[in-house]
């Protein structure tokens, strides 16, 4: 089948970009019209992405198009798009979530007077993410990568009148910068070592696909690890995960967008896109898997003890991203991308549902919630579906993708499999805790008794996402590996039923335990917490990572800053001030000398003669 729509793939990012330009130019006078512009633009992108995906499903060839941007010496930098199965999948994910978030925000942000600014940022965010997805070379990807970072900064700090939001935005920007630096160095290294300085993915695939003959193993590992560092920063992997939970200070739709489709997915996508480099370096693969597994279980334990609904979800995202990295690290692009695909839907669903809850009760603390299920039926139901999907209960989407990762891990390393299974258990546990504390039981606060369901514009995306969360997993099951075949051209392999049974058992056990603790009360959670106060406190404080960073990096850097400022103030400014003061003093002295007093002039002349004589013939006097 011919590539009809893929030729217009550049329109997918261009539409939101145009919306951004339009909103920036005329935003203030548009208001609701502006929101419609953004929604329609994302709808257009979605339609086109779906058309391209459909075309690809029918077996169209890869499409790529690029033109030279800069030529210097023998090297050429190009700009272009690459439509493959991987990119078209990502396009669909991004545009679906982006469109639904746009629709949802119409209700959520209705009362915000900077709504058009919000939509402008969201549009730019989508455009940069789509550009990142479509980019056919690493440099272009890096540019969009940074644009994504800027947009996340703008959106997390959207409510800049809140100091926490400002701090969170800065934190997100600065922490991801560490990773971005790694990616930049990786790009530069690639540019240096690649034959012909080519940075496009096709050449990279060719070079590294042939056992990395052109580039030594050490450099390959270094490049892979640096790229992974970029992914760690963007995807909130340990140890750069700290920005992600704080990013909850932004508007909730943005949390959904960041967590499901755009920002954090970029890291996973990057690793998947440059997977050939990782494949060429076993050490890098092992690192990815280890970091992913550790992040998964690490974040899941933290999520158990958080009391902010969005923070629980944030740590859940970190954990699930760890899962994806684990999947990639054990060598299965299919598993990682599959989980990214399904996770995008149910995590967006969970965030949007959480936003609906927050919208209704105006608090984010789950200890103040409760009993909302009866009054917010749609939200509760959809949230429940999302939670079950996240917990990995069959036959929801999360189950299949998680199973794929666990199966791949089992094949590679039993330890990673165990970690994954425990994480699955913990995931089910904290999701049930969240669900029961928010929706079940009695209202803790009278004011919440009047909470009512959100408007249809907000619930409709929830329903759509819930439906997707249910069905999205069926594209790839152990018995029907169509998705993996389509994505990578190889049939995905499954290790039989062991992984499936363990995953299901872990999920169900977690749910049951959660039910016992938070719903039925068979296990007294106060007593449970009292028996291990240290652990609870450590988890509540998120393993003191923030404090550790504050102590090690922030304080020392701030101290360095003070020193530098003192140097600047005392030495540099001091030198400048000294020059000024000297000039002033000389001027004042000269003013005083120009008194018109003959005797003064004569005195100066006498001194001049004395100095002159001493200077010229001073030595002869002795």
């Amino acid at each position, binding site marked *: 089948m011919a590539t009809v729509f893929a030729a217009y793939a550049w329109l997918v990012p261009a539409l939101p970009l145009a919306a951004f330009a339009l909103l920036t130019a005329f935003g203030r006078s548009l208001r609701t019209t502006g929101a419609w512009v953004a929604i329609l633009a994302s709808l257009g992108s979605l339609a086109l992405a779906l058309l391209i995906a459909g075309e690809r499903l029918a077996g169209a060839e890869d499409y790529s198009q690029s033109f030279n941007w800069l030529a210097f010496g023998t090297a050429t930098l190009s700009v272009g798009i690459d439509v493959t199965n991987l990119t078209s999948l990502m396009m669909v994910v991004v545009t679906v979530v982006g469109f639904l978030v746009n629709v949802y925000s119409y209700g959520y942000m209705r009362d915000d007077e900077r709504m058009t600014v919000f939509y402008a940022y969201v549009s730019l965010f989508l455009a940069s993410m789509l550009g990142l997805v479509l980019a056919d070379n690493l440099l272009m990807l890096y540019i969009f990568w940074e644009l994504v970072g800027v947009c996340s900064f703008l959106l997390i700090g959207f409510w800049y009148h809140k100091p926490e939001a400002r701090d969170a935005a800065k934190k997100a920007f600065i922490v991801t910068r560490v990773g971005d630096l790694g990616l930049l160095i990786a790009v530069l290294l690639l540019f240096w070592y690649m034959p012909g300085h080519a940075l496009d993915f096709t050449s990279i695939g060719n070079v590294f696909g042939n056992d990395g003959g052109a580039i030594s193993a050490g450099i390959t590992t270094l490049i892979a690890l640096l790229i992974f560092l970029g992914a760690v920063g963007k995807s909130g992997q340990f140890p750069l995960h700290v920005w992600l939970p704080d990013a909850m200070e932004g508007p909730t739709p943005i949390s959904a967008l960041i967590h499901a489709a755009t920002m954090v997915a970029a890291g996973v996508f990057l690793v998947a896109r440059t997977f050939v480099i990782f494949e060429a370096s076993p050490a890098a693969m092992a690192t990815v898997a280890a970091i992913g597994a550790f992040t998964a279980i690490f974040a899941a334990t933290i999520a158990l003890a958080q009391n902010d609904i969005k923070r629980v979800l944030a740590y859940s995202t970190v954990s699930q991203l760890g899962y994806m990295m684990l999947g990639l690290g054990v060598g299965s692009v299919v598993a990682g991308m599959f989980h990214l695909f399904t996770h995008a839907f149910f995590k967006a669903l969970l965030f949007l549902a959480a936003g609906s809850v927050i919208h209704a009760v105006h608090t984010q603390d789950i200890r103040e919630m409760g009993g909302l299920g009866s009054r917010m039926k749609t939200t509760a139901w959809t949230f429940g579906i999302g939670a079950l999907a996240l917990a990995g209960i069959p036959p929801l989407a999360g189950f299949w993708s998680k199973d794929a990762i666990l199966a791949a891990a089992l094949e590679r390393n039993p330890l990673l499999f165990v970690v994954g299974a425990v994480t699955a258990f913990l995931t089910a546990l904290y999701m049930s805790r969240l669900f029961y504390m928010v929706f079940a039981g009695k209202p803790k606060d009278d004011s919440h008794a009047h909470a009512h369901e959100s408007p249809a514009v907000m619930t409709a995306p929830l329903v759509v996402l819930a439906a997707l969360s249910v069905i999205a997993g069926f594209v790839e099951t152990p018995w029907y590996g169509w998705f993996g075949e389509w994505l990578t051209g190889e049939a995905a392999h499954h290790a039989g039923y062991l992984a499936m049974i363990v995953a299901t058992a872990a999920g169900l056990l977690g749910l049951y335990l959660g039910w016992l603790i938070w719903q039925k009360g068979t296990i007294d959670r106060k007593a449970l917490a009292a028996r291990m106060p240290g652990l609870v406190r450590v988890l509540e404080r998120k393993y003191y990572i923030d404090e550790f960073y504050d102590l090690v990096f922030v304080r020392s850097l701030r101290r360095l800053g003070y020193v530098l400022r003192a140097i600047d103030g005392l030495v540099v400014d001091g030198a400048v001030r000294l020059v000024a003061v000297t000039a002033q003093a000389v001027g004042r002295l000269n003013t005083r000398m*120009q*008194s*018109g*007093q*003959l*005797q003064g*002039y*004569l*005195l100066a002349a*006498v001194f001049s003669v004395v100095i002159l004589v001493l200077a010229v013939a001073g030595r002869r006097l002795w």
Partner: protein
Amino acid sequence: MTLLGSYLTLAAVLFCLGLYGVLTKRNAIVVLLSLELMLNAVNLNLIAFSKYGMIPSLTGHVFTLFTISVAAAEAAVGVAILIVFYRRRVTVNVDEFDELRR
């Protein structure tokens, strides 16, 4: 060894005393007088050298005569200026002679 060094030292002492007077005295007449003292110190040098110099010669005397003449002329003009200034400003204080600044 002759007395040349002693004469020169005396001249130096007188010169410096005259210079000090010129630099510090506020009364214009005293300043003029100090100036004459400095010129006299120079004259003393000239005459001392004319006798004790390497080649004794009367040229030093001639120069002394010229110097005295110039000093006399200078004193006359100086006093004249002083009187004119006194007429305008009713003062003979040198530190109020700040016409150069205007």
